[in-house]
């Protein structure tokens, strides 16, 4: 069981980052493929092959490059770089707070990319993305705070090696994190800004004006982001790698299940419910932890 940690410990920080750079898109791509296949099965369809996301991205890179203006691509490249950077930091075992802030910066560049063009659909998508970000960000910060309260460190390398199960101290935080994970994975009922499913009222939201290679880059960033988020789920169960990996997969399946069963919320409900949930389960968990000390 400790073999995974031994391998991890033996790697230097740059090589850990390199492993993440190479492996994350593979894992993320297949996860996205499993997502589409599972979604189809839930709906009684056969579904596309597991490798479909790779076909999609390879095709997108062969399409014509259409630019509405040059800032559009600039923002998306920065979005990609910062997403990869925060993932690499996380898997190198660096500071969790730095990871969270750099991920927020990546999200900001994505929103700026949506605002860089003239399309009203893109603008609505970007505004909704902004609201979503405000909705989920407090819970992400609370997660870092809660983990610090238990372990006394923000370092991912320390958190993951903590001998006691973090989930026993942070059940409320974990529940809150699951709630906002639906927003981060862009699943119903919170897929306001863009959705992987067909017809919705704002066409494709924030990605409306992105086509070809740029859209491919957004997809790849999304894969990196998903792997990073599942890594955060892993932290809660870091005491046993096998349990942790199982829970990561179960979380993913659970999110797909939620996606299939809900219609889209309005932005008011999205915002209010996530803040309320964060305050109740996250906040009370933090207070209880503080009183236990």
């Amino acid at each position: 069981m400790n073999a995974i940690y031994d391998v991890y410990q033996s790697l230097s920080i740059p090589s850990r980052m390199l492993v993440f750079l190479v492996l994350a898109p593979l894992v993320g791509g297949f996860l996205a493929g499993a997502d589409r296949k599972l979604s189809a099965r839930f709906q009684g369809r056969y579904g596309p092959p597991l490798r479909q996301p790779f076909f999609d991205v390879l095709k997108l890179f062969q399409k014509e490059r259409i630019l509405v203006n040059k800032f559009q691509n600039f923002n998306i490249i920065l979005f990609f770089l910062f997403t990869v950077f925060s993932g690499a930091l996380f898997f190198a075992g660096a500071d969790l707070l730095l990871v969270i802030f750099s991920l927020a910066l990546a999200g900001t560049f994505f929103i700026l990319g949506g605002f860089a063009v003239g399309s009203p659909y893109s603008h609505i998508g970007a505004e909704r993305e902004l609201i979503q970000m405000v909705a989920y960000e407090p819970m992400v910060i609370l997660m870092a705070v809660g983990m610090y309260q238990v372990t006394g460190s923000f370092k991912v390398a320390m958190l993951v090696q903590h001998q006691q199960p973090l989930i026993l101290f942070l059940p409320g935080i974990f529940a809150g994190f699951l709630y906002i994970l639906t927003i981060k994975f862009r699943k119903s009922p919170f897929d306001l800004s863009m959705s992987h499913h067909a017809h919705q009222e704002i066409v494709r939201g924030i990605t409306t004006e992105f086509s070809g290679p740029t859209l491919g880059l957004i997809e790849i960033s999304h894969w990196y982001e998903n792997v990073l988020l599942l890594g955060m789920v892993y932290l809660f169960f870091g005491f046993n790698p096998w349990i942790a990996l199982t829970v990561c997969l179960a979380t993913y399946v659970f999110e797909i299940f939620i996606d299939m069963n809900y219609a889209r919320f309005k932005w008011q409900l999205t915002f209010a419910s996530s803040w309320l949930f964060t305050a109740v389960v996250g906040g009370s968990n933090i207070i209880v932890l503080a009183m236990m000390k």
Partner: protein
Amino acid sequence: MGWFKRSPWVLHYNATACNGCDTEVIVSLTPLYDLERFGIVNTGNPKHADILLATGSVNAKSVQVLKNLYNQMPEPKAVVAVGLCAISGCVFQDCYNVQGGVDKVLPVDVYIPGCAARPEAIIDGVIQACDVLERKHAERKKARKRS
């Protein structure tokens, strides 16, 4: 080799159809036919699309929309005319505002007959359009090499 065969994304536009062909297009996405098993996705956004599925005869009002949608699609792209109205205008061809089939406005690559076109025929037509996409992609590549 291109990857268009494995992941053609479709944009559907109703020029002036009676909704018969449109229903059949949507039906081909349902569990019984499941277009997505070929990687086909109905996008609703011309900038993401590879194939334009046009239904119905083209009239004076829909010409501009059709041209606009086609121009926004990135290369390589293909146009599929679904149903008899989209092929020739059918019984509406003599109407004062009807210009005829989709090929009066856009270069159509695949014609799918039927009134309404059956889902099996639509799936077959889209798969044939994939070959057209592959050919256009190869031509683009050759032209880029030459220049």
